[in-house]
């Protein structure tokens, strides 16, 4: 029974997306309610599916009843379950948050479009996670990429349009790379179904063609994941998109690049050539960690800081993956969780501030902690998690990354991890200083600025993310229910 949820959890959001324009002609709020319901459904089914994975380890569904290699298979295993849970829950939270935000910040005519795109984004990502062959991966990749370009541009400002266009160019190039890589792989093996592909490739010698295909796909996913030299699209896109979209982009979409990398490296290549790939990519990741944090330090716009910080944080994830060791992978996955929760909470908080108070520069944030104490407490929790203070998830992930690096004898990588977390701490403290330890900014009238009440529709998702962050932070062991078998499974694929 639960197998059917596999296909439903993808198709329901996608199908609902088509319904929304129709219904919203008569019903203003159709977009919100439908999107929320669809995402609630996929969240629920994701829970059921994760339950199934906990029992069976891997569940698969053959579309139309055709078994591979002729039919299309979608499947879920431990790694997928981890990402699926994140994707469905975060999209739900963002959808709920968007209700008020969108009404305040978008033209009414664009609201249904927003939810359509949101659903396409969520459905695309879920499909990407579940896809069993690489061509389906590509299709879903395109779906969610396209909707994210559109979402970035949706507010219609010149800057966001430009940022979105840049994102589009990079994204299209990346998807073409993926396609090229798929073509190469297909030319070598004659199949697109991942297990078969892996099998066929395993027989072949590790030739230049395989290398080229791998490189193409990895670079493409690197662009999507905003790995250091390829990250140029990210700061603009993430900072200029509407805040809930930024939350989703930073929290999830760039993780999809990582997920793609995991798929290619482990599911397809089975860890082949890991040393040379690892050396190159960990160097890039290390640079990303430092450079991203340094860029974040120099920025003054709160969303730009977070955007640059995403570059840095995703560096940790990628570093963890390319360490190819238990602790490295565990740290990487934990960092995915940490960053997803923390960064989306941060962007949502920033969204509240921007929509309620109308500014985003750090100077204007002075003393806001005394006006919006609860919001800012969650904000600070998320920052602490980002900065890997003790009793946060960030600490555990940095710990494991460090451990992984030391295990492989790469002390300098451990040093980079710690230096990066130090720099992260610096910009977090910079923000906290402005929020809590500065005299409040003066409004137009000369008195202190006043802030309207924050709607519970906004507070609840933030609160849930904040508490989730706190819970996972204090007991990072909880997430190991999924992470540990996931990592062991991945390592089991290494030949």
């Amino acid at each position, binding site marked *: 029974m639960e197998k059917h949820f596999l296909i439903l959890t993808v198709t329901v959001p996608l199908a609902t997306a088509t319904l929304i324009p129709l219904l919203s002609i008569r019903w203003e709020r159709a977009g919100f309610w439908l999107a929320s319901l669809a995402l609630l459904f996929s969240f629920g089914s994701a829970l059921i599916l994760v339950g199934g994975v906990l029992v069976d380890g891997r569940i698969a569904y053959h579309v139309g009843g055709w078994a591979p290699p002729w039919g299309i298979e979608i499947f879920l295993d431990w790694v997928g379950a981890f990402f699926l849970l994140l994707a469905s829950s975060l999209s739900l939270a963002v959808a709920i948050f968007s209700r008020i935000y969108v009404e305040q910040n978008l033209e009414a005519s664009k609201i249904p479009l927003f939810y359509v795109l949101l659903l396409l984004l969520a459905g695309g990502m879920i499909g990407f996670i579940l896809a069993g062959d690489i061509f389906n991966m590509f*299709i879903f990749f*395109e779906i969610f990429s*396209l909707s994210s*370009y559109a979402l970035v541009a949706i507010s219609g400002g010149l800057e966001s349009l430009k940022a979105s*266009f840049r994102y589009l160019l990079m994204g299209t190039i990346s998807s*073409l790379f993926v*396609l090229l890589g798929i*073509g190469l792989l297909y030319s070598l093996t004659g199949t*697109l179904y991942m297990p078969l592909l892996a099998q066929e490739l395993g027989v072949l010698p590790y030739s230049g063609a395989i290398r080229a295909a791998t490189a193409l796909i990895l670079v493409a996913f690197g662009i999507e994941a905003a790995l250091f030299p390829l990250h140029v699209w990210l700061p603009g896109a993430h900072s200029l998109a509407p805040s809930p979209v930024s939350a989703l982009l930073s929290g999830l979409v760039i993780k999809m690049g990582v997920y793609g990398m995991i798929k290619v490296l482990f599911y397809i290549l089975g860890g082949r050539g890991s040393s040379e790939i690892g050396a190159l990519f960990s160097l890039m990741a290390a640079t990303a960690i430092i450079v991203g944090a340094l860029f974040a330090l120099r920025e003054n716009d709160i969303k730009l800081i977070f955007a640059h910080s995403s570059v840095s944080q995703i560096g940790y994830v990628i570093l963890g993956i390319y360490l190819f060791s238990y602790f490295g992978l565990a740290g990487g996955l934990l960092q995915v969780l940490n960053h997803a929760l923390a960064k989306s909470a941060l962007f949502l908080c920033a969204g509240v501030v921007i929509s309620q108070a109308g500014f985003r520069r750090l100077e204007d944030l002075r003393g806001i902690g005394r006006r919006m104490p609860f919001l800012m407490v969650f904000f600070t929790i998320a920052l602490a998690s980002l900065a890997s203070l003790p009793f946060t998830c960030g600490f555990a992930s940095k710990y494991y990354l460090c451990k992984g690096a030391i295990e492989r004898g790469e002390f300098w990588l451990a040093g980079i991890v710690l230096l990066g977390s130090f720099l992260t701490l610096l910009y977090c403290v910079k923000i906290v200083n402005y929020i809590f330890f500065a005299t409040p900014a003066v409004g137009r009238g000369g008195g202190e600025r006043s802030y309207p009440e924050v709607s519970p529709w906004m507070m609840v998702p933030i609160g849930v993310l904040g508490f989730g962050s706190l819970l996972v932070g204090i007991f990072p062991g909880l997430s190991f229910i999924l992470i540990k078998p996931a990592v062991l499974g991945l390592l089991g694929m290494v030949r």
Partner: protein
Amino acid sequence: MSTGNFLYGVAMLLFLIGFYTVLARPSLIKKIIGINIMETSVFLFLISVGSRRGGSAPIILSGVKDYVNPLPQVVVLMAMVIAVGTTALALSMAVKIFESSGAGERRG
């Protein structure tokens, strides 16, 4: 030299031409044209992967034993649809950018 390998080379050349356009030409429209050139080159590549010397189209006819591989063609078809979507989106953005800035040119 087989047709396949020859076409691979052509596809790469076209890809590079497209890539150059995207990177170097300032006009947004030109960039989008560049993307299209890249896309078609990738499609060319995929099709030439599937094609076989002397093979005929993957339509079942009596007496024909040697078909080209249909799978890449399916792939290309879907990718082509997506490509049109992308192009449309990009063009609409280009128009918007032009309208809101007063110039369709953008450096970088």
